[in-house]
């Protein structure tokens, strides 16, 4: 046990702090803002200093340092502390680039990795379909080869940022006759390609966090396939691997817990502070215990990554536990607010901008999205505990 980072890292930390002091003012205030030029300039500055794409080889536009998760963690930590935009992440940089570096051709790496790192290309992910959610491998969006182009037809759903992204990495069926996992291929194409229509998908929170994307005879140059025909499932899983590897940010939950503590000290019922009601307080403390356990679990995972130890079970439970915990945490705040908890979006009496209700619903969405809790429990029991898979059913 040694929770100290060690001098090498403390040096890096000082460098990062100095960098933020010197250049922090250049950071875009809001990563969703349209100012792509500013975002890109900031991104390139960060790559120069190795605070983005730190472990991506130089020849592909990265910083070229050896992979060190603790360095990455520490850098993110410092930017968060200073509340400075840590540079653009997104599915392209976070999940696609590592997969491309492993599986793409030299030409593809040279063509796609550098502009992705600089945010010249922003990506969206085309996996799920209306009839292929939990059962992703049954997807039916088709691509047939016509001359030297793939012709794509079908529909994707749950595509976040589809409206703003430049390119999509997309899982399509190219071998209709092969078994479902062997019939897929992994294509890259520009969202400007003719035949693509994007329809925003409004959620219960009232915002459109997702989109549907429709393809009608979308022509994709044959060379824009990653891996061989029929290897799409392998490529997609490699991407998902890095997606799952992204353990999320337990500090966000801690910040919410602290905000809830403040709320319960500020708000009153029957003349007393909510915090002085032992029933609410006990619910708060139960949540605090779970928040602490998940934070330490996260620390364990980071350390395991660092020291190449296996902590796969500890990793598998993060999504299931983390989303459920947030949903309950936001729900306690709504109860603590009583009638005020149902106020929404606007109005004089609204507390914290209505964020408690919004997040209460949003996290129900996250409990479902990215592998429902039921799928998570299948994975935990089968891969984590080695329990038998569902037996094949008679056709």
């Amino acid at each position: 046990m040694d929770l100290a980072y060690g001098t090498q890292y403390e040096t890096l930390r000082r460098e990062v702090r100095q960098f933020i002091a010197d250049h922090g003012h250049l950071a875009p205030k809001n990563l969703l803002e349209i100012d792509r030029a500013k975002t890109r300039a900031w991104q390139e500055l960060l790559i120069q200093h190795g605070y983005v794409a730190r472990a991506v080889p130089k020849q592909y536009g990265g910083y070229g340092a050896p992979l060190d998760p603790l360095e990455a963690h520490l850098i993110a930590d410092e930017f968060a502390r200073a509340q400075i935009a840590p540079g653009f992440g997104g599915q392209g940089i976070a999940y696609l680039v590592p997969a491309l570096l492993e599986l793409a051709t030299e030409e593809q790496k040279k063509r796609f990795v550098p502009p992705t790192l600089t945010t010249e290309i922003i990506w969206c992910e085309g996996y799920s379909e209306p009839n292929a959610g939990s059962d992703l491998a049954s997807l039916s969006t088709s691509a047939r080869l016509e001359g030297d182009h793939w012709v794509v037809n079908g529909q994707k759903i749950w595509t976040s940022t589809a409206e703003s992204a430049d390119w999509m990495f997309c899982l399509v069926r190219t071998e209709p006759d092969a078994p479902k996992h062997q019939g897929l291929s992994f294509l890259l194409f520009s969202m400007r390609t003719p035949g693509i229509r994007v329809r925003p998908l409004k959620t219960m929170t009232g915002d459109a966090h997702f989109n549907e994307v429709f393809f009608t005879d979308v022509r994709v140059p044959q060379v824009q396939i990653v891996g061989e025909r029929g290897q799409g499932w392998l490529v997609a899983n490699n991407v998902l691997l890095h997606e799952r590897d992204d353990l999320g940010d337990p500090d966000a939950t801690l910040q919410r817990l602290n905000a809830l503590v403040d709320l319960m000290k500020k708000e009153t019922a029957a003349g007393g502070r909510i915090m002085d009601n032992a029933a609410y307080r006990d619910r708060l403390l139960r949540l605090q215990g779970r928040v602490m356990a998940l934070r330490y679990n996260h620390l364990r995972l980071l350390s395991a990554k660092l020291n190449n130890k296996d902590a796969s079970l500890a990793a598998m439970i993060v999504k299931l536990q983390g989303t459920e915990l947030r949903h309950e945490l936001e729900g306690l705040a709504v109860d603590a607010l009583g009638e005020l908890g149902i106020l929404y979006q606007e109005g004089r009496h609204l507390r914290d901008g209505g964020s408690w209700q919004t997040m209460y619903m949003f996290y129900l969405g996250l409990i479902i999205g990215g592998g429902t809790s039921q799928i998570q429990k299948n994975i935990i029991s089968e891969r984590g505990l080695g329990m038998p898979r569902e037996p094949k059913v008679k056709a």
Partner: protein
Amino acid sequence: MEFGLSAEQTMLQDSVAKFLDRTSPLERVRRFCEQREQRAQDVWSGLCDLGIPGLFVAEEHGGIGCSLLDAALVAETLGSRVAPVPFVATAVMAPLAIATAGSPAQQAKWLPALAEGKVVVGAALSTAASNRLTDPVQADGAKLRGRALFVLDFEADAYLVADSQQRLYLVDANDSGVHRESLATIDRTRIVGELVFEDAAAELLPGSNDPDVCARVIDAGRIVLAADTLGAASTMLSRAVAYSKERVQFGRPIGSFQAVKHLCAEMAAELEPCRAMMWYAAHAFDAMPDETRLNACHAKAHLSEVGTRVARTSTEVHGGIGFTDELGLHLWFKRIGANRQLLGGPDQLRDEAARLQQWV
């Protein structure tokens, strides 16, 4: 001895259900919500033709003279269709208050109009029903000052108002001393709002000097909101079951997976006893006054907890699409969420139940 619904009661629910399915399908409710209508006039006048506003008004005053149980059964049906109409205040709380505490003149003036649905009266009882809100309504003779929040059936011609002594008043919505502002909540299917009184002219319901009157009005409101949640939650359960039979993944309807089956079984196991609980609470109001308050508190608290779990679980069974606006499922989710907090959240109600039993 019979603890169950009569043929008439089942017919009453069916007729309201049939009417709503025809006149207030999902698209109609959506339009009401999205266009921020103040009154779904077509739905409302249809309900008036069915006599719903007068259900709980005595026949002598032009109503049908039904029991609170009957009213609760209608509320259950309204909840099951997330009907965008006033009900709990104008069809239950106001008639009850005026019938029990109003002078003969007040009864003659208000009850027939309420029964016909010509007049809608909202309920501004937060000063008496909520333990959280500040700036209570204070009476100074026939003038009111203060604030009422989460006024039920807010788009109204007049309001039933409680002051800090639990006395009840009727106030004209257009009185110059009344400042109205509707409140944006998660539930767009019903309109609640805020009233600020600055020397608003108010007529006292003389019988309400007995604080038990105000308490009974709140009991009735809580039972009716519990029934609304029962209806909404029952719909969410049946929609989850129906969806799980259609939706195919891994080559089978997801409803054949034990995980999904057990989620639905758990919803049913929790929700089904709530039906009897709602019946009992409403019947207690009608026939067993001593048991009313405790049952009203517990029925609304318990149904709020069960309803919340059903709303979440049904959404989960629907998967991603349940989280979107596509099926409109969230309208039920949010109605349950609003009912949970209105007229007192479950924690407050359990606390009241404890005090009623002198446990503290």
